[in-house]
């Protein structure tokens, strides 16, 4: 069988089994096993046990369970509620202020946790009813919550970035820092959009009446609520930036810090701890098994020579490198509409990255742009993870359609931010290059 045929067969097999809803981890493993039996020899299956032991004992990956656990603890810690209280006091008097506060709190939460679920769930529980009560437009309300949550993977620490770094052979720390400016840029654009929109159409997000606003002294007292999150951000990101800790160590510090935060807010009960641990072990197992399946799959690609074949085909095609880049971006975007980001990273990065290096693009910049592209998938139908998190809270008056409509303007803004980062690579690469080595 020619390599072209093998490539085609593998793609068709993988797609065919994925659309049945079979777990991604096992789909990858199945195609890996079947392919190895067909094109190599059953004896080559001895690599299977090593896929488990190698992936799950790689020190590089310690950051994953640590940041997952940190997010789980922060979700029950009450930190989000305290932060929202602070921002409410500062922003409620402005038109659209509560929606802007939601994005601001989500940004800070994103900088303390690795996933988008913490912000979406916390804000969905406290900010949604509040904005509803204050007469905010439903779409602005929902849009600010879901888009704020989608910042989670872009603003470090980020589970998605750890995976991108792992499978694209980048430094986790550098990719983290590369996300800071684009993340703040996107959050800033979200807030600007909300404030301008509400300034022009006050009925979308009315300012609360003057008699309910709090005094300046209360505003400053409320800043206490921001101390702990900022301390956490310094410990996690500041330490990575300063080269004091590796991302894995920072994850451990962060998870430990999250436990302390929960204790300070008096939410460190056995029940809360169990909730956090139970969801963390499930997410950890889920992600790692996709990595294990992905390892089996990529050993098939390596054994058969398919990855080299694709790379040579594309690099040798003499297409303009920006055309190739655009095609890759479209592939990731379309996959993101249907799939979670984890398998997309694991399937595409080992194939794309050698090509990107051969075409002399900056790998770090590419990793960041890919991460931003994956975020779009969080907000686009039909598989918009942010919306699923929100639906999971159980507000009965919100339909999936409402959520898609609400997110549309924010998706547009995110595309603009993505373009800015593509056109001005410095947004991504300047800060990490200033890092203490």
């Amino acid at each position, binding site marked *: 069988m020619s390599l072209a045929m093998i490539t085609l067969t593998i793609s068709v097999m993988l797609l065919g089994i994925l659309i049945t809803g079979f777990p991604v981890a096992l789909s990858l493993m199945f195609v890996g096993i079947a392919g190895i039996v067909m094109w190599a020899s059953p004896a080559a299956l001895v690599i299977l046990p090593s896929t488990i032991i190698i992936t799950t*004992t790689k020190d590089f990956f310690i950051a994953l369970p640590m940041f997952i656990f940190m997010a789980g603890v922060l979700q029950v810690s009450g930190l989000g509620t305290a932060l929202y209280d602070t921002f409410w006091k500062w922003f409620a008097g402005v038109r659209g202020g509560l929606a802007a506060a939601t994005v601001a709190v989500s940004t800070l939460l994103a900088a303390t946790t690795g996933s988008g679920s913490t912000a979406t769930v916390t804000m969905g529980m406290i900010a949604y009813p509040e904005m509803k009560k204050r007469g905010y437009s439903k779409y602005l309300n929902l849009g600010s919550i879901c888009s704020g949550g989608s910042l989670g993977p872009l603003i470090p620490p980020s589970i998605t970035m750890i995976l991108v770094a792992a499978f694209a052979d980048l430094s986790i720390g550098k990719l983290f820092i590369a996300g800071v400016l684009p993340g703040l840029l996107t959050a800033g654009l979200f807030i600007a959009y909300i404030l301008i929109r509400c300034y022009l159409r006050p009925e979308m997000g009315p300012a609360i009446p003057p008699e309910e606003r709090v005094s300046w002294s209360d505003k400053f007292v409320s800043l206490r609520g921001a101390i702990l999150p900022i301390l956490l951000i310094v410990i996690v990101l500041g330490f990575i930036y300063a080269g004091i800790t590796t991302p894995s160590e920072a994850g451990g510090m962060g998870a430990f810090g999250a436990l302390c935060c929960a204790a300070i807010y008096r939410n460190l009960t056995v029940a809360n701890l169990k909730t956090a641990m139970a969801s963390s072990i499930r997410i*950890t*197992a889920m992600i790692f098994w996709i990595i294990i399946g992905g390892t089996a799959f990529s050993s098939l690609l390596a054994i058969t020579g398919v990855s080299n074949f694709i790379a040579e085909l594309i690099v040798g095609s003499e297409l303009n490198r920006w055309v190739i880049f655009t095609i890759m971006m479209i592939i990731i975007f379309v996959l993101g509409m249907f799939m979670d980001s984890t398998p997309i990273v694991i399937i595409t990065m080992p194939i794309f990255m050698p090509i990107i290096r051969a075409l002399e693009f900056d790998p770090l910049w590419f990793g960041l742009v890919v991460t931003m592209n994956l975020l779009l998938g969080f907000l686009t139908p039909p*598989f918009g993870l942010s919306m699923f998190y929100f639906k999971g809270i159980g507000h009965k008056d919100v339909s999936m359609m409402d959520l898609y409509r609400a997110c549309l303007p924010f998706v547009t803004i995110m595309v603009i931010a993505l373009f800015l980062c593509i056109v001005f690579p410095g947004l991504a690469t300047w800060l990490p290059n200033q890092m203490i080595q």
Partner: protein
Amino acid sequence: MLKKIVSGINALNRWTGETAMWLFIPFTLLVAIDVFQRRVLHHPWYYIDITVQLMSALVVLGAGYCMLYDGHIGMDIIVSRFSEKTQRIIKIILFFFFLACLGPLLWGVTIDTWNAVLTKEAQTTSMGLPIYPLKILIFLGVLLFLLQGIAKFIEDILFLMGKSGGEE
């Protein structure tokens, strides 16, 4: 009878997951202490060999637990539009794909674990921590994963036969 098997497996995996999840506490503490020793006391001690084993244990013991709660994500946008009955039939067919993965995996892991136990295998790092106990856990984890798949399979069959599936 079949229902008892299902609820037995479910209970076993729930117990395993909810016991294993406590490993997050020593895991977090060890990573944090490691940073303190390395950066503050400048006296590194290789906790990392232990932490990676804890991580591995979390992953393998969490596999079945994750499956119990349908936590292994798949692309179910198309399938979720079908009727419940059709979905269950698809899952029953997919069970054989599941076996095609977990069968070879369990086989490979069994041999690997057996060899590790016989040779009292240790990590190749400076500390040389024994790794065969972890390999036994990996074997158990894969076995529990397989069992949970079988439990789901029986549930789907029972559903189609008109009986209510196992508990939950």
